[in-house]
């Protein structure tokens, strides 16, 4: 994982963000955000009234001028929050864009090769790319095999193999061929290629509001409307009481009451959520997918690489009756010395750890390594006229039966093999000169700490299902060891799809990851389908996220990021609404004290004067936006826990905090305002 950590407020980002904040004052841009749009409208109207008063030289200009300035600051701070979030995204995009210099493509047409600009390529065109050239667009390899450097998008420097047919045929525009020549059929038009989409997504340009964000905006607009009623009726009330209230003060009251805090930070939260994914090298093809990730109930996880280490390891030697243990271990080690597979290496290591057999140099032994072939399904070594073989039980049995030595196969072989399989392991027989010596027990090694993570997920209400091609017996054993809730053994793409549909019918949201073309239907069916960057184009199109590192474990992080984004949104909404209590207590007495002096008793904060009370409330309302930008960008603290615990914690912090903090904040600002003689 190449997580680029960047300080929250990069100095280089602040100045452009400030400029952007001003640029975002254009009505068309403001209209995207109802609460801030209303705020700007109120600020503009107040400004007009202020100018009228200034011309007619009415009194109290210093006070109303300050209030109006802070109304505008409220709008600017909101724009600034969005600009900062976008700025961080742009910085990420700029790094991506560096890789996208002008590329020339060799297009194949009617058997001829013509050089065209990459931007002129159409879907279905065939291009030839040779070593050292850049792949001009997203596509599928239709001819040949090559090594490709995909570090531009994945950040992973090791080259990968791309070949025609199969699950490794997809290539991405902007990556570079290192060896050989391949022919590619272009699958994405220029401008809509993977890289293009990725850049526009992280920049925030193509960002569309997610369903929950739209709903939240509706709520915020509705609450603003309720407060329109609450504030617009005050002049009538005041007139009944024989008093008057100034429009500027009403404007201040209104803007402090409407949920400006969450309104200002809402889009920043969304952009930051996407960016957090990008920093994890995961690209969400829509914001909707990030939201869905937070809702996931069931995680389908591939066994290999996610739950277990990719490779099996030897954990025990089982000599057959009548064979010295040392003899069998010696043979197993000899046969594995030149075996570079992880299984082979683990046998050497186990022999050394358990039986003190040191590694030996092969050259002096005049040994000849016999590599694994699909025909024999065995590997081994010929040394000093001896023939040592190891392989799957069936393969070794066949070898023994066919061997001229004519040894019998002991019955214990099958017994041991069955016992190992039942325990979730894989048996590997070792034979010498046509005689079975014993069985090496290979075992899937469950990743360290994964059991605890599954327990966390379970607490959060997320069920984990292990997907494996193993037989049910082995799968059950590994499932039990890893602590997953369920498993799907001998999985086929059809079975996966069936499982997803069954879970969804129960009202559950399912997340899975996959890479092969045959995974595409399941990826499309899943609510969150994470396709591996190494996968086929079909798989990538079917999923709604792409993991550039092709690391299936990340599904767990993706769920976390989705949840964190939703939690941040909820926390700031709650905080914003809870704030209103204190603001009422600051402004209502200030508003009415002129004609009902007894209402001074409501001034529980003991604010210096009506003017300073109003000014302090509006200043607090604006500054709290700035103060919460880091929280919006970073997200609220998130640790997996059951919903009840998360709720009580967050309600205590953001609900109760939202009630109390503004009382303190407004009081402090009032002290400063009064001391500075501003009101």
């Amino acid at each position: 994982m190449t997580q680029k950590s960047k300080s929250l407020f990069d100095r280089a980002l602040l100045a452009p963000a400030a400029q952007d904040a001003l640029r975002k004052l254009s009505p068309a841009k403001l209209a995207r955000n109802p609460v801030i749009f209303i705020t700007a409208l109120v600020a503009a109207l107040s400004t007009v009234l202020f100018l009228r008063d200034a011309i007619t030289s009415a009194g109290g200009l210093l006070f109303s001028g300050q209030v109006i300035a802070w109304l505008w600051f409220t709008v600017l701070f909101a724009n600034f929050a969005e600009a900062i979030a976008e700025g961080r995204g742009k910085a990420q995009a700029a790094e991506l864009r560096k890789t996208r210099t002008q590329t020339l493509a060799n297009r194949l047409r009617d058997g001829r090769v013509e050089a065209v600009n990459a931007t002129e390529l159409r879907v279905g065109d065939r291009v030839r790319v040779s070593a050292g050239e850049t792949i001009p667009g997203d596509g599928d390899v239709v001819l040949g095999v090559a090594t490709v450097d995909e570090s531009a998008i994945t950040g992973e420097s090791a080259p990968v193999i791309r070949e025609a047919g199969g699950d490794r045929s997809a290539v991405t525009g902007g990556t570079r061929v290192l060896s050989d020549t391949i022919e590619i059929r272009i699958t994405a038009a220029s401008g809509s290629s993977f890289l293009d989409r990725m850049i526009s997504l992280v920049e925030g340009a193509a960002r569309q509001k997610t369903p929950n964000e739209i709903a939240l905006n509706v709520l915020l607009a509705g609450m603003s409307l309720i407060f329109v009623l609450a504030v617009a009726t005050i002049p009538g009330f005041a007139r009944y009481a024989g008093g008057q209230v100034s429009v500027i003060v009403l404007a201040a009251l209104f803007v402090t009451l409407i949920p400006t805090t969450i309104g200002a930070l809402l889009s920043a939260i969304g952009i930051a959520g996407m960016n957090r994914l990008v920093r994890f090298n995961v690209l969400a093809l829509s914001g909707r997918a990030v939201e869905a990730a937070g809702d996931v109930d069931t995680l389908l996880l591939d066994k290999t690489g996610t739950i277990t280490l990719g490779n099996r390891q030897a954990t025990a030697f089982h000599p057959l009756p009548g064979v010295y243990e040392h003899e069998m271990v010696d043979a197993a080690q000899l046969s594995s010395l030149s075996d570079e597979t992880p299984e082979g290496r683990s046998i050497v290591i186990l022999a050394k750890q358990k039986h003190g057999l040191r590694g030996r140099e092969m050259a002096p032994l005049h040994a000849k390594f016999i590599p694994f072939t699909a025909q024999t399904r065995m590997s081994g070594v010929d040394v000093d006229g001896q023939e040592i073989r190891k392989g799957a039980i069936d393969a070794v049995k066949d070898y023994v039966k066919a061997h001229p030595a004519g040894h019998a196969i002991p019955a214990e072989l099958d017994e041991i093999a069955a016992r190992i399989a039942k325990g979730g392991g894989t048996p590997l027989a070792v034979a010498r000169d046509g005689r079975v010596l014993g069985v090496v027990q290979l075992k899937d090694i469950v990743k360290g700490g994964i059991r605890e993570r599954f327990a966390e997920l379970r607490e959060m209400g997320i069920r984990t299902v292990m997907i494996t091609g193993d037989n049910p017996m082995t799968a059950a054993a590994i499932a039990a060891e890893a602590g997953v809730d369920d498993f799907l053994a001998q999985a086929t793409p059809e079975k996966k799809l069936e499982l997803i549909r069954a879970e969804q019918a129960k009202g559950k949201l399912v997340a899975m990851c996959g890479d092969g073309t045959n995974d595409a239907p399941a990826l499309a069916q899943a609510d969150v389908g994470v396709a591996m960057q190494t996968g086929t184009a079909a798989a990538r199109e079917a999923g709604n996220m792409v993991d550039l590192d092709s690391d299936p474990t990340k599904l767990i992080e993706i769920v976390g990021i989705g949840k964190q984004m939703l939690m941040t949104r909820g926390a700031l909404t709650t905080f914003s609404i809870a704030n209103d209590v204190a603001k009422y207590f600051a402004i209502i007495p200030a508003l009415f004290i002129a004609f009902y002096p007894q209402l001074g008793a409501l001034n529980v904060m003991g604010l210096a004067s009506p003017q300073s009370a109003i000014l302090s409330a509006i200043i607090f309302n604006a500054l709290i936006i700035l103060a919460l930008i880091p929280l919006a960008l970073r997200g609220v603290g998130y640790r997996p826990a059951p919903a009840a615990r998360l709720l009580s914690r967050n309600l205590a912090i953001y609900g109760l905090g939202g009630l109390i903090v503004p009382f303190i904040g407004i009081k402090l600002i009032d002290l400063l305002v009064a001391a500075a003689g501003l009101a």
Partner: protein
Amino acid sequence: MTALGWLQILVFCGLIILLVRPLGGYILRVVEGRRHGLSVVLGPLERLFYRAAGVDPQREQSWHGYALAMLAFNFAGFALLYLILRTQQWLPLNPQALPALSPHLAFNTAISFVTNTNWQSYGGEATMSYLSQMIGLTVQNFVSAATGIALAIALSRGFARRQAQALGNFWADLTRVTLYILLPLCLPYALFLVWQGVPQNLLPYTEATTLEGAKQLIAQGPIASQEAIKMLGTNGGGFLNANSAHPFENPTALSNLAQMLSIFAIGAALTNVFGRMVGDEKQGWALFGAMGILFLAGVAAAYWAETSANPLLQAAGVDANLEGKEVRFGIPASVLFAVITTAASCGAVNAMHDSLMPLAGMVPMINMQLGEVVIGGVGAGLYGMLLFVILAVFIAGLMVGRTPEYLGKKIEAREVKLTVLAILASPLCILGFTSLAGVLDLGLAGLQDRGPHGFSEILYAYTSAAANNGSAFAGLTANSPFYDTTLGIAMLLGRFAIILPMLAIAGSLGAKNTVAPSGGTFPTNNGLFVALLVGVVLIVGGLTFFPALALGPIAEQFALLQGSSY
């Protein structure tokens, strides 16, 4: 505050809690159309109604169909009632030869009874013939209550069903609720009231000669039959002008207890019906719990305010504020009744709210301004509270890291939009009309008092109308074209501008699939949720009215503490 006072309050609460489950279970059987004791006896009658009306009770309606049936039924009820009130002088059962109501009063009254508000711009004994009371008003008392219950059941079905297009059959719900719940409960209840001393006759008013030799006309009539449904259906419209303060409506402490219990009974039991319908009774108890906390807080605040020192009375050498109260009830039972009748949208009164201490008088106002969700009107309280639940779940639900859901139903933009629309209706009417009446001479003409107290009188009237409560603060002369019309509009919007979006929500939720609950699901049946719900009701429902309340009862209370009154 006295121990005896608190004992009365706690006995009341205990009895209500005991009622919730058994009554809830029975209502559920009825609305699900299952067999029960009464359906065996009255089943043929029920089926006869369906046949006569050409209704197939098995055919369920979409939310549109349900809403249209409900609107048509209510409009017909309004038209019939208006007609009766305008022509009562020619109709029988009018021993006092009372004239027809004026057009604006008939309009106001017809809307008032159809919307379950029972705001009365008139004095019953001096305005209504027995026929108007019985066939006009009492009938609406039954069917407006049945409408409310049916609507709450429809919304509950929306939560309980998955991927369903239908919400039930309005005609069947209406018939079953009336026939099996309201009528069977009211019959013995009316007899009980007769036993306690409530008249039930069709005689002309009795002319009595007092000890001083003055002539006094003593009003009577078919009071007990109207009284029962007035309480049980949270209608609140008194037969007599003095409502439940009058000894003929509410003669004894025992009848007073029965009346208070019957106001809350169905509304409280409906929370249980809801819980059972969605398959988790605890969900119902959570709603009941939130209502209970708000109720107890209101009672405690009002009781405290009413019994705390009033410097003006102390100066006059009086220690208890008994103005506007009946001595047979005293302070605790008067305050308790005032809080109950406004918490549920009943509106019957056994004391004059106008004469309560300012802060004690503010509690009834807040109860209504919260949207009548503290038990609330029969049915209306449940669906009102569920709207707040949707809001609470939406605001805070995200904090568990999932998109908001309630009982497995995802709350999305459409539901939020409709909820906001429904919640907007009440502040629009209350604040808008109060502001208007406060500046127009037409509005000020009806005031008995000036200053904050006069303001409270206006605020209370529109609050009561928009919340479909119907209780009056007293002091405001509301029978004028201006008040009759604006209050009528407030009652209409306060009822149907909430019902229609609410039914649309029910339709939209019913059509959704239900998400399976897990450890990550926002818990909505525990104490934490109850606290959250109470918070949202107070902040969203209450804060809107803070400026108005500050200029009314709060300003009055602080002035009173400084020794001045209005």
